């Protein structure tokens, strides 16, 4: 174990309220480079809110985010945060339904492209070279996720499980330093879940991605994650390895209710 590495992202005392509702209350967490971290908790615990804060959709009322050792300015736009190297997938799919798998994944490369729109339209020298490089990168991802057979299929024609996979592909295409996955296995059958779990593990082990994910399937979470943070009603109630979390009475209480109550 190579502990005490500088965390890639540190969230300190994050609080946010929606109207009167305190969605997150002084939550702190760290994501270490090279790990798979899970955020779990009952419905409405604030998991997705946390992800939205990490990638900049929401601005926290209090607290600060430190990414790669630098504090994030309060009003940073999500697209700039994405450009820093944070990519994500969504709980409810957000693909371009009219575009093919290839097109959708190519979109994920946008942040990495440098040539301007005019030179792209003319497909000249630099743009041509760049386009080919990016296309090759996309092909490596297609190969990685084994979606060769749907390369040209419009996203709207794909079954749910495959759309999820395409979304993952698009996030990977951005070559993020930190990959956020919001319920990557929601609504999948056992076989599809096993496939995605395999891909998430491979993305971590083989491609070296740092991953933070939200997932409800405890079996999967316990199997693939290095570390787990548990939220309940906007508060962090536990943090630790899967084994520690399994044995934590507060977690059991949050999930199963008060014993004998």
């Amino acid at each position, binding site marked *: 174990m190579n502990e005490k590495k500088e965390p890639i992202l540190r969230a300190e005392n994050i609080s946010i309220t929606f109207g009167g509702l305190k969605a997150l209350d002084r939550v702190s967490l760290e994501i270490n480079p090279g790990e798979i971290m899970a955020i779990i908790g009952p419905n409405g615990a604030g998991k997705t809110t946390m992800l939205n804060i990490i990638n900049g959709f929401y601005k926290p009322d209090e607290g600060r985010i430190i990414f790669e050792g630098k504090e994030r300015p309060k009003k940073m736009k999500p697209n700039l945060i994405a450009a820093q190297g944070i990519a994500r997938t969504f709980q409810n799919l957000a693909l371009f339904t009219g575009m093919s798998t290839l097109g959708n994944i190519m979109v994920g490369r946008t942040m990495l492209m440098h040539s301007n729109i005019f030179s792209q339209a003319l497909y000249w020298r630099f743009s041509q070279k760049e386009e080919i490089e990016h296309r*090759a990168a996309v*092909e*490596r991802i*297609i*190969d*990685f996720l*084994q979606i*060769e*057979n749907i*390369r040209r299929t419009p996203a709207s024609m794909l079954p749910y499980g495959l759309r999820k996979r395409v979304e993952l592909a698009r996030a990977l295409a951005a070559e993020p330093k930190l990959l956020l996955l919001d319920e990557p296995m929601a609504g999948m059958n056992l076989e599809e879940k096993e496939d995605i779990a*395999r891909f998430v593990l*491979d993305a971590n*082990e*083989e491609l070296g991605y740092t991953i933070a994910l939200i997932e409800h399937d405890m079996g999967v979470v316990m199997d693939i994650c290095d570390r787990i943070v548990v939220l309940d009603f906007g508060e962090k109630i536990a943090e630790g390895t899967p084994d520690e979390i399994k044995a934590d009475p507060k977690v059991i209480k949050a999930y199963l209710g008060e014993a004998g109550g």
Partner: protein
Amino acid sequence: MNELPMTFPKILIHNAERFPPTKAAIREKDYGIWQSYSWQDYLDQTRDFALGLAALGFKKDDKMAIIGDNRPQLYWGMAGCQCLGGVPVPLFQDAIHKELHYIVDHSECKFALAEDQEQTDKFMVLKEEIPRLKYIIYDDPRGLQNYKHDWLIAFTDVQEMGRKFGKENPEYFMNAVNDLKPDDMSIISYTSGTTGNPKGVMLTHRKIAECSRGFLEWDNLDETENVMAYLPMAWIGDHIFSYGQALTSGFTVNCPESTSTTVHDQKEIGPTHIFAPPRIWENILTQIMIKIEDSAWIKRKAFAYFMEVAKRVEKKRIANEPVPLIDNILYKIGDFIVYGPLVDNLGMRKIKVAYTAGEAIGPEIFEFYRSLGINLKQLYGMTESTAYISMQKDGDIDSDSVGPPAPGVEIKISDEGEVLYKSPGNFTGYFKNPEATAETLEDGWLHSGDAGYMTERGHLKIIDRAKDVSKLKDGTMFAPKYIENKLKFSQYIKESVAHGMDRDFVAVFIDIDYGAVANWAERRHIGFTSYTDLAQKPPVYELIKDEILKVNKSLSEDPKLKNSQIKRYLLFHKELNPDDGEITRTRKVRRKFVAEKYGNLIEALYTPDQDSVDMEATFTYEDGRTTTMKANLKVRDVETF
């Protein structure tokens, strides 16, 4: 004239010399692009791998198991192993542990070449059980980065070792290749067989080379052909086609990107030569019919009309009779609006010759393809004969025979009606199984185990497996496969098992085609949850009944078979599956096994008035786990004509 090389390493070296580097020997679609390798690349890759094997201690006559989808690396591995005088043992990639264990152990494999993690995992288990297995070599490193063993090596690392070994031993490769004799064993091909353990058919370099050349000459094929390699490498058909013929002629082999992209990849390549078992032709037909049914009515009408025209025309063409002018004109129109686009869609527009082999094909399926203008022909062969026995000649086609004997082949029919033959491809024996060899090979005559006869035109006609042909109680001849193949013409029927030996009538198990029937049910808003559930829906029984009626009608037209019409049927609760042992990997029904396992179902078919039967079914998953479920199967009657 120079003597043609007779061992595959020499043939490969010869190819590298005679073909320019611009000519593709093998292509593989990778990252969405066709990557091609010239014959020189093929040789270099093979040599490096062979020398790497030598560095690992691979000796002459050592065996190497090969498992995976068709990849250039696996073909190079096969050739590399042969260069050292070794013998490749290709295995079916979907085989379960028990089968693999038997073959790897029986064939005494010391090395294994696996395509990817999935296959490597299988061998890692085997290695613990079979200490003789020394090294596992893998091609695709995906998912294997955490496996650290000194006996588990990447294909490219073996090649790297080979380059080093080659520098230190510059003579080694050519010495090994020159050491190899044409009559040395070149491959052991295990046949699954419908009974007992698999048997290892030993074939030599000379036999594979001669038979491959025989095939090429028969159809005037040369180095300009393009073929798709997508059939299991363990099947002799693929070995002859993607390896034997490819090397002897120098034509180009194309490996699809993945199994699921084969159809699309084939469209891009436009192969000129195809070799496939009937199940592939059946599947393609089913896919076509599903798409046609989903299309607009005008397309459906046009398809139905012009297919009738095509059938009429093909009947005339097969009989070598002139086609009436009006049909000729209609056919041209049909070609423009139906057959042409359809054939193009299948990626078969450039086909010069297509073969169906390995099993009997239903005449209706056969005629369907021919009527589209695809030159589909039948070939009769067995692993034991290097697939070389008889095949149809252009202009002398017959929908229910398998053509005249191939050049150099003698065929005779035994007194019991069994087909015996002497082929230049006849095998040398079963590996470590002299008893079985003695039973099959007598005085140079090979017992095919098939019942058949020679027609007046001098064509061989196969009726069925000799041991399967029997009689109904009233003495009517009962050839189960004949009836099953007729049933399989229906897009809704995937497999079937006909019963009737010593019974009053014929009754069948039917295995619905899940894809086609599910599509049909969806269009009619029939809800279902699973295969079992769908198969037991009354409307599905009605649907299948109509299909059986068509078969009965056609049987009733043949006075000899009139009494073998189907009277009762039941729809099976699961697909027949090689993992469960009901059919072989090449999809031949294991009748005895089915009869024993499903005795109560057969009894129900022959118990008058019994209209359903309870069934406990066991499913085997790919990883060998099993689960049991209970079902109640309906039994229904069909009218006869």
